[in-house]
């Protein structure tokens, strides 16, 4: 989902940690791609979170860390 949005898709690493009521995603991208993933005023990050939420199991909270 993120790969086509950045300059260095090969440097993307995602960690997923699932707990009972939440799922945490840690998204690592190349330093110069961080801005693209977050977007102006966090727009892209918000969009990513919204899509993750739509795909999540009912009642699970979604956390997305970008670093």
């Amino acid at each position: 989902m993120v790969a086509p949005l950045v300059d260095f898709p090969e440097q993307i690493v995602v960690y997923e940690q699932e707990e009972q009521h939440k799922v945490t995603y840690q998204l690592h991208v190349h330093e110069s791609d961080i801005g693209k993933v977050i977007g102006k005023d966090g727009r892209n990050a918000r969009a990513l979170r919204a899509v993750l939420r739509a795909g999540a199991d009912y009642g699970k909270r979604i956390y997305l860390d970008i670093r």
Partner: protein
Amino acid sequence: MNQLTARGKTVDDAIQSALQQLQAAKEDVEVTIIDEGSKGFLRLFGAKPAVVKVVIKTDVMKAAKAYLESVIRHLHPNVQVEITTRKKKHVMFTLSGENLGILIGKRGQTLNALEQLVEQFLHQQKAYHVTVTVDAEGYRLKRRETLEKLAVNAASKALALQKAIPLEPMPASERKIIHAALHKQQDVETDSKGKEPNRYLIIQPSQEKSWQ
């Protein structure tokens, strides 16, 4: 293979042959005529074949559609994506399938998020300033009607109470609908306040403006 040079008796023949070899449709390629060819004298002497160069256009909108499909596939197994409007600076994708609620989200927030991601995708493909609309189950039209009703109601409330009425925060595309709906109504004004993503509209009775 995304380009080649082909020959034929006529320009059309050469193009046809190139399209066949590339397995492409005519609207997906760019054709440069290198040599128009000639039939020669009495079709016997000096006949030259026509030569064309045919390059497959990388269609950024089709790529965007493929990207949208790849994101949606994770959310819903059975959705058709179609490009329903296509202008230079605007593209609209319409999703169809059953139970698309999950793709619409509360107040369309999943649709809005998909739009944002596709916009970023286009930006990354160097297609700048293209606005993207994603619609499903006629949601955008329904939402427009709801917002227009809300606008009219809020305007009469503002007039009745002679007070400014603030609305809920909404995205720019939805604020625009309300601004437009009340644009012709002289007795109220609309204004946006706050910072994205919590920017909201206020509707108030028109004030006499003092022109200095």
